[in-house]
């Protein structure tokens, strides 16, 4: 398509966002370009089925099962599929493990690429200009805004998702969780801890 068409067709739609979307929905439905039932199905997927509880199950399995952890680090897409988790924006997964030496944090500076099958749709802050601009240059200041301060000597590695590879951070297992089963461990794993802007919650 030609780019830099300064007479963008979108400007023909009403200025108010809700009306713009409504107009487009009306046109697409009338022209047989969109199935209204498909819209409901898509929303049901991302409002109810797919979310960070899925990524948390992967992390909890990795914490509990050393063989699974090894498979996850070697081929995350396949290891995640063992839990019947797969799909759009998670076709090429890489798991990156936090250690006492390295804290990992994920961003997409160019758009807002995010591992949807394991985390769901991205939170607003992940898509914000502030996060996209700052995460690569001053990750520690950004972490502080999430209430996270890293210990001295732990380096930060920020993963800018510039291709179709999607990153899942495997946070460090909190101390004092030795007796917990996978389901209990998964409840400690927050969405932000799998993006790298948070840490898992401690045992209750």
């Amino acid at each position, binding site marked *: 398509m030609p780019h830099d068409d300064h007479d963008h*067709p979108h400007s023909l739609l009403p200025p108010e966002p809700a009306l713009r979307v409504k107009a487009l929905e009306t046109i697409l439905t009338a022209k047989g370009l*969109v199935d209204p039932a498909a819209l409901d199905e898509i929303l049901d997927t991302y409002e109810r089925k797919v979310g960070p509880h899925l990524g948390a199950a992967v992390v909890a399995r990795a914490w509990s099962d050393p063989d699974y952890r090894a498979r996850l680090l070697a081929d995350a897409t396949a290891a995640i599929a063992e839990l019947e988790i797969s799909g*759009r924006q998670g076709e090429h997964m890489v798991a990156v493990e936090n250690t006492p030496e390295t804290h990992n944090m994920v961003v997409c500076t160019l758009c807002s690429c995010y591992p949807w099958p394991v985390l*769901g749709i991205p939170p*607003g802050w992940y898509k914000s200009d502030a996060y996209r*601009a700052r995460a690569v240059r001053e990750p520690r200041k950004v972490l502080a805004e999430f209430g996270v301060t890293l210990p001295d000597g732990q380096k930060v*590695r920020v993963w800018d998702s510039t291709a179709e590879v999607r990153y899942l951070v495997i946070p460090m297992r909190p101390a004092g969780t030795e007796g917990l089963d996978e389901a209990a461990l998964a409840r400690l794993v927050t969405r932000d801890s799998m993006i790298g802007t948070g840490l898992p919650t401690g045992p209750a």
Partner: protein
Amino acid sequence: MTRVHDMGGRHGDGPVVPEPQGIVPFFEDWHRSALALTLAAGGLGQWSIDTSRHARECLSPKDYARFSYYEKWIAALADLLVAKGLVTREELAAGSAAPAPAHPKLFRAEAVGPALAKGSPYTRPGPAPDFEPGDRVRTRLPARNTLVPGGHTRLPAYAAGQVGTVILRHGAHVFPDANAHNLGEAPEPLYTVAFSAADLWGEAEAEGDEVTLDLWQSYLEPA
């Protein structure tokens, strides 16, 4: 030479505001519709993810800055629908269209679950990689699409002309610089390259901090 979306490292943005954990809710009804419409229309298979990213990047800097996330999606979707001849300017202006039979590639409700769970892999048979983990490589300077002036590229300006170390190889992936412009998938070896934050920014927040990027082979030369 850069576009407005290429904002990595930019100064002047405010704080990042955390949100509650869990599944992210939609804050407006039209956000729900914008997401669903964009995915459903994408399901027609008339454009690639690279083309849709480029459509968003081609919003004017003024629109890109003032539009919220889902407004960008809707604006780019409208532009793509017209560019592909699926919707006319007149229909956009009227906000309505005459009824028409279902498009042969209509993304139907029953296909949604399987399609979302399957995704679209981007690996392809392609050339063998020239680099291996541990190799030092230098990125293109300036960051630009060498096939199409002003075209889509995935090398951010902040990482242009920098020397880093290959840490991962991902096989050959669809090359966005070509695919976004209907020049074919032109698969190339894809790498993850780690850069010292001190090299990128002049000084790092802490010694040893790094930034990694996923970069196609033609963005790189031996260093």
